[in-house]
């Protein structure tokens, strides 16, 4: 049975976009009843990665004890509605996560090289 989802088009779009991005699928191909494991083929590590992406996008932390609730796309949507309404009135992907992604792409900071006396001859 298709679960009834909370209506908030803006938030739903953001959720589906985040899930679609991780799953490398068009968000319109995702359905609330899709099982993360059986329909989308996610193994345990991939489920953790999906949760990581959701956490990053919505700037929340999902405790271990809530993992068991997240079995379908619909479960994730309902969960995020609960969490984002509890913390923000209008959840949007955070600036820090966007910044982190940009930073990630550039891979920039290193310490300055320090000269040594003996040179290496690999």
């Amino acid at each position: 049975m298709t679960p009834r989802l909370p209506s908030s088009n803006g938030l739903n779009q953001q959720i589906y976009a985040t899930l679609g991005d991780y799953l490398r699928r068009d968000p319109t191909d995702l359905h609330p009843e899709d099982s993360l494991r059986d329909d989308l083929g996610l193994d345990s590590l991939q489920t953790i990665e999906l949760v990581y992406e959701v956490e990053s996008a919505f700037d929340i932390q999902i405790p271990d004890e809530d993992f068991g609730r997240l079995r379908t796309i619909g479960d994730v949507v309902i969960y995020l509605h609960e969490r984002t309404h509890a913390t923000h009135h209008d959840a949007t992907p955070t600036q820090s996560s966007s910044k982190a992604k940009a930073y990630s792409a550039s891979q920039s900071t290193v310490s300055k090289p320090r000269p040594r006396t003996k040179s290496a001859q690999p």
Partner: protein
Amino acid sequence: MAARVVITGMGIVSPIGIGISKFWEAALRGQSGITAIESFGDLPMEGYRSRIAGQIPHFQPPASGEDKFSYRVDRYAQMALMATREAIQDSKLCLEHERAERLGVMAGVGMGGMMMGERELTHLYEFHKPHRVHPNFIPTITLNSASGILAMAIGAKGPNLTISTACSSSIHAIGQAMQCIRQGQADMIIATGADASITPLVFAGFCALRALSTHYQDQPSLASRPFDRKRDGFVMGEGAGTVILESLQHATRRKARIYAEVVGYAATSEAYHMVVPKEDGLDIARTMALALKDAQLEAKQVDYVNAHATSTIVGDEVEVKALRAVFGPRINTLLINATKSLIGHTLGAAGAIATIATCLSLDKKVIHPTANYTDPDPNCALPGISSTIQKKSLRTALVNAFGFGSNNAVLVLKKFS
């Protein structure tokens, strides 16, 4: 009686070409794959003493739809996957007809998944959010991520090992694979070497060691010049090479094409210094002698050496000293070249790539030029080193590889007959 071991497939991802035929054509032309590093994000390159490397700028792993493995691992393991797929195709192995338990993987890896390692470390210190460390961080940076993902991708359930001995890693991987087949523990081993760590921190680390060439920033193709008087350090590279090792019996049964036989291998330590070889070269000479003994061959039977030759001042000279000690007068008829003159030093991949070049030389009766060997260093000059291709019928060859941590590895290959 120990099984004979042969090489029946090869694959490569290198700065002068992805795929064996592209690599070999470029190698015979003496083409350099060394280019300027454009940037590490917004980090000023002026802060780096060296700013050149053997890069593969257009490397693209297959799309996730075609390959469910590549996107889960770091760049080095993606390269290993690509090289391995080519090697399997080249060997014409039908994996579904093979016993998975008799197929193993041995990987030589120097640095591993440093791209993700550096990125996650940077994030952690920048944003102070430990809960935002990526869940795939540990599986990716673990040094055996390449050997693990290769086994999963091809369904290899035999021995699965990663050997990390810096620059000699993949000669040890091939040597250990040979031992494994000799002893009957497997029929086939996918032996690979891979590294892709031209990253801000690792590159700065090699700069800090004063190990890299710095005199040719504006002419990168001239920077890697083993045995030449004007050499001034090595050039870092990235890539992967894979060879399929197989028992002769298994290869014969399936009528496989045989590139070469792996007949000898030796591993030693100098127990001397973390990053410099002992100047007398005696332990390197001992390693070559042990490998020849393992092959039941004499030095006078060797025709060609693919030298470790990284283009460092001391390293090249010590290797030549060791070659003189092992080969005596034979040194004057020995052909020698340095694959690193073309692609730089690909660290964990270097031994596997040199082995591929050596197999091709045995097969095609020609060795590629040693690029930039234009003004021979009197301490290194030998008649068999040339900046042009050399054609000769070759029967036996050595592949040398020496690594940080004071370790040496030598492989002996023979034309199959």
